[in-house]
């Protein structure tokens, strides 16, 4: 009981401090900035934030000290709860990927993407359609004219690879049999082992297989061809309207002071423009650059939320209210 009231007092005083802060906000930040990863060390969130911290430190973008903390658990829900407990405080920057949208849609976490302040989108993971190089399938036409239901490997049901597969199937008017696998490694194994006819997967997981000639990429789900794969056509240029990708971005807590938001957006904008960002983060991880500033990112999040809401509702995966 006592500790609970202590906690309440602590939260309350934090709120009071947060409310007073804007008055002397000219000297934001007043302490180090915390980067919050919603998954454990080594995961996608963690890798992105640690690369950011490293580049900020090495190129001396700002003086503020930066500390990466992991708040894993609950498909990102733990970190959502953690950041929203710091509403009004601009000293927290959290990695946001598709789980930022999907976890609140599929499970009851009491928060949504609207409870945070979008700062920037830093990159996108589109979906590649890949086949083993020995496959008789050489083009999208071969898939359309296969004459049987093809087996497709991808990430979990309702994830971007599944949604992209549904889009392909609708655009072509053919039936595809999607089989969910856990993680990119299992998808790549299933494709190499001939368990499936083709796979939908993010570029970073297969770029080495493509380079070494063991897999062939047939199409990519971006608007325009990606710099990384200049020879891979988009679905769009082949006449199929399949544009789908997940995002890697950063958000801050709700209701942060304007000065804090300006500081964070400026920091991230300058960070993503450095050559180090490209050579140390985007390229090694196979991520396509796709910077959007705070306002554009906010609009993008709303649009992405709608896409997921429609698709997850069609699949019967939305949380029951």
């Amino acid at each position, binding site marked *: 009981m006592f500790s609970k009231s202590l906690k309440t007092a602590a939260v309350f005083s934090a709120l009071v401090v947060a409310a007073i802060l804007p008055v002397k906000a000219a000297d934001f930040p007043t302490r180090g900035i915390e980067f919050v990863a919603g998954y454990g060390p080594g995961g996608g969130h963690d890798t992105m934030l640690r690369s950011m911290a490293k580049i900020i430190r090495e190129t001396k973008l700002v003086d503020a000290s930066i500390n990466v903390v992991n708040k894993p658990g609950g498909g990102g829900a*733990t970190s959502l709860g953690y950041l929203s407990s710091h509403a009004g405080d601009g000293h927290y920057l959290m990695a946001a990927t598709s789980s930022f949208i999907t976890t609140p849609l599929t499970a009851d976490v009491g928060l949504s993407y609207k409870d945070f302040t979008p700062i920037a989108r830093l990159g996108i993971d589109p979906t590649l359609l890949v086949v083993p190089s020995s496959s008789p399938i050489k083009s999208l036409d071969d898939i359309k004219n296969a004459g049987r239901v093809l087996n497709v490997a991808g990430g979990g049901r309702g994830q971007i690879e599944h949604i992209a597969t549904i889009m392909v199937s609708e655009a072509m008017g053919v039936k595809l049999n999607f089989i969910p696998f856990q993680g990119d490694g299992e998808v790549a194994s299933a494709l190499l082992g001939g368990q499936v006819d083709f796979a939908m997967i993010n570029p970073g997981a297969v770029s080495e297989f493509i380079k070494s000639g063991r897999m062939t990429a047939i199409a990519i789900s971006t608007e325009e061809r990606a710099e990384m794969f200049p020879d891979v056509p988009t679905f769009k240029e082949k006449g199929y309207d399949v544009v789908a990708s997940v995002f890697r971005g950063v958000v801050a807590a709700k209701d942060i002071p304007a000065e804090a938001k300006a500081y964070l957006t400026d920091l991230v904008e300058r960070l993503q423009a450095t050559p180090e960002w490209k050579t140390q983060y985007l390229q090694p991880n196979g991520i396509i650059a796709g910077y959007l500033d705070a306002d554009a990112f906010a609009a993008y999040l709303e649009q992405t939320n709608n896409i997921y809401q429609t698709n997850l509702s069609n699949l019967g995966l939305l949380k029951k209210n």
Partner: protein
Amino acid sequence: MLDSLSHLMLAFTDVATPENLLLIFVAGLIGTLVGALPGLGPSAGIALMMPLTFGMNPISGLSLLTGVYMGTMYGGRLTAILINTPGDAPAIVTAMEGYPMMQKGQGGQALGISAIASFVGGIFGLLMLIFFAPIIAEYAIFLGPPEYFMLMLLGLSMIIVLAGSDPLKALIATAAGVLLSTIGSDYVSGNVRFAVVPELIEGVDFVAVIIGLFGIGEVLVNVEERIRLNMGKPKFKFSEFIPGWAELRHISFPTLRGSVIGTAIGVLPGAGATIATFIAYITEKKLSRQPDNFGKGASEGLASPEAANNAAVPGSLIPLLTLGIPGSGGTAIMLGALIMFGLNPGPMLMIQSADIVWGTIAGLTIANLFLLASNILLIPVFVNALRLIQNHLNAIVVAFCLVGAFSINYGTFDVWITAIFGIIGYLMKRSNYPTGPFILALVLAPLAENYLRQSIMLGQGSWGIFVQKPLTMTFTILVLGVVAFGLAKAPFTSYLRKKRLQAA
């Protein structure tokens, strides 16, 4: 093959600088400590050490990480044997035979046997990695969900062995484990099942359950029965913890069998070390002339799974190094480390960055040697440390367990899970419900479930997928044969035994 040898020899000269040797030695020790802490396993150990490798050259950095990985496998057995608290899932079987030996006053011996078995397993796995990695990886990739499902079935059939005297109670425990395993998000259907609080979205962490069930459950029983461990004399002779020739002969074949099983199953993504230890254990029990000794401190039941456990480390590195596909939580983090060092994990890694890959393998070989030496020499320290705290042992074990539970996700939720399962573990022990089947179901049921559903989906609704390809059919026949034989044999042998008793 000769090519591999010349690469390796060159790599040894690269790695064997004084700084590197010191680094590998320290990495092994840190890994041992991390592995010994309940809740912290290989993934946590590697993740914790990653920041230290920033700025190191790739060979030193990767040797540090693999040294820690190997060290956690040595460490996991310490708490399993000394205080019946497996630090991670692969150590569960170690506790089943090691702790009874400890209770009999043979703790030092148990630590010695398991250290040697670990070493042999590790070296065996390394030899396979050195000479056959590319070949193994190319074949392993042809195994898919139908073969994995059969393997899970084999693992689950182990429940019969762990059942103890009352099959009905074992069945109830199994069903409870299966039920618990269904909590959380399910990637095959995309649904989130029974997540009444957000923390349950990723399911109940089975490490938290293991710590509670074994560690805290044991403490509660000990407190009630005022059990004191038999520690033997405070002064140690080497002969007490270094197994003699007779003992070494006794465990030699079990250790080799465990090594083979560990390498073979460690290669397979997803399944890894845990299943390898269980299958090694069941194999020994089936082959043993005195199966009744199992569960009461049978050294072959300790040696074989320990060998399997450590052989699985190089085993799981095979798909990582040859294809860039991680097969376990630990290797998934190593994948991130490879990228961080500017390497391109994938099918070209062993060709493009041969010096680094072979350097890492050489580092791992050296780590294994260091770990054997340090783990044998430190046995008196471990046992005497336990003796020092014996009067407060229960309190200290509880503290260890709760800190371990906290460190799984750095949150209090898993502490509650551990506490609750501590009480459940106590109640299960009091009323003779076996905990083994419960844990086995919790760990394997979700894997079996997903592989089964993937298989049926691959077959587009047809069960024919299990017999379509010759490889799959071989697996199906083998596994179903083993399971059927085991099922038929159990009632048959108990019938024979009864007959013999009547005759006597």
